[in-house]
């Protein structure tokens, strides 16, 4: 039996002004699956997952998450949906005016409605340990390095244990060792919490470790879809070039 489809994207079209970025892409993501999206810079990968999270509105096509049309939800339903969804921003998007601890507490208080100080503290420490940042708990985001910010953003996304996690380049700007750790963290989320992940990356080793399925976007279309092995050995020169 095939697992339930948690994300259904059908014929998604999105333009900014007169520039068409996405011209009809379709794919599904099943529960518990890790889908890696590859594509050249500027093809609209970030735009695609922002549409999935309801941050951008598509021009045409339908987009369902947990079987519900994202654009037809009212404010409260959208909020409820987002509580089940994690989003790692390409730029980490840490709250500049808050410390690392407050950054982590922000989603905890709102998504999981945890009020207890001790519990917040212990969860913060736990998640920071998993990204290797225990020492940074009292720092301000401005005092973190680029790679630390990235990991911190990851910690803030994972702390609420979302059912679907959208990663926008989780390993960019990290050294190979940390990249590997982050990749195994993605797998761990899948194994322990049965999380579904969509991972945008340019990092081929990360894709290799995490991907159950790979999707290649090119010029606003889905160019290819398949397992890592299949695409790596594809007959198409262009597709193979992503894996070199």
């Amino acid at each position, binding site marked *: 039996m095939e697992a339930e489809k948690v994300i259904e994207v059908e014929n998604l079209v999105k333009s900014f002004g007169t520039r068409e970025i996405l011209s009809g892409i379709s794919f599904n993501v099943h529960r518990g699956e890790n889908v890696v999206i590859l594509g050249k810079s500027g093809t609209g990968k970030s735009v695609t997952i*922002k549409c999935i999270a309801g941050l951008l509105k598509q021009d045409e096509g339908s987009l369902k998450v947990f079987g519900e049309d994202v654009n037809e939800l009212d*404010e409260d339903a959208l909020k409820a949906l*987002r509580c089940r969804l994690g989003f790692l*921003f390409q*730029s980490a*998007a840490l709250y500049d005016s808050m410390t690392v601890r407050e950054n982590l507490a922000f*989603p905890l208080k*709102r998504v999981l409605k945890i009020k207890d100080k001790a519990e917040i503290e212990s969860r913060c420490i736990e998640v920071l340990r998993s990204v290797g940042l225990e020492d940074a708990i009292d720092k301000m985001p401005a005092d973190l390095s680029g790679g630390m910010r990235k990991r911190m953003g990851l910690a803030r996304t994972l702390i609420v244990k979302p059912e679907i996690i959208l990663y926008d380049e989780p390993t960019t700007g990290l050294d190979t060792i940390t990249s590997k750790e982050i990749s195994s963290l993605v797998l761990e989320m899948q194994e322990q919490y049965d999380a579904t992940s969509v991972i945008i990356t340019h990092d081929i080793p990360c894709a290799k470790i995490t991907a159950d399925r790979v999707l290649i976007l090119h010029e606003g279309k889905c160019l290819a879809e398949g397992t890592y092995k299949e695409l790596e050995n594809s007959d198409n020169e262009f597709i193979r070039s992503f894996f070199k």
Partner: protein
Amino acid sequence: MPNQIFTAGLHNMADQVYFFKSFFRNIFKKGFEWEELFRQTYLIGYKSTGIITLTGFILGIVLTLQSQPTMKEFGAESYIPRMVSVSVIREIGPVIIALICAGKVASGIGAELSSMNVTEQIEAMEVSGANPVQFLVVTRILACIVMIPLLTIFADAMALVGGFTATILSGDITAKLYFTNALTILDYSDLLPALFKTILFGFAIGFVGCFKGFTSNNGTASVGLAANSAVVTASVWIIIIDAIVVQVTNSILYS
């Protein structure tokens, strides 16, 4: 071309009305961010206290010193405290303090929110199950509505202290005499319109700052632009509100 400017203006106005509606609706939504409201009131009040104290104090001194020669000519020196208190409390205090806060608070809010916008922090709040309008906009506008009047009252008091300082430097007057002189002249028709006005100024400062920051374009250049246009727009609003409130209160109180 004029046509385009006209439609752009209409669009902008529609955006502002929409923004106001969303602000207003979110005040009453459950999950009000009390903690953030207190933090904002503290920040707005605390950050501006220094400059407000200085401005108020010097305002009182300058008004007193400047009117002394003329008033002396008419032998009306004893009217100076009353003149200072009425002019500061009715008009100069609220407007000057509001203009200073437009420079300090509105630009600060504009820059802060637009930089959050550029760095995707507002979107991040949205996906973290928070309502950014509720968390960022409602708290800031309400904090301005509360703090700008308080800052103005404080500045008015400092202006009287400044006026008193200038008076004892040039003549003999007891504090008791000065302040009874200055305060007994005031009645509710001086105080209420002034208070009402500062509440509107507070709203204008908060609203313009939030609107400019929240609706800024992408790109870091827009941060400076948002801060700048927040100051300019808020200042213009303040002058316009001042003119309107004068007309309205005059027609209510003196007709």
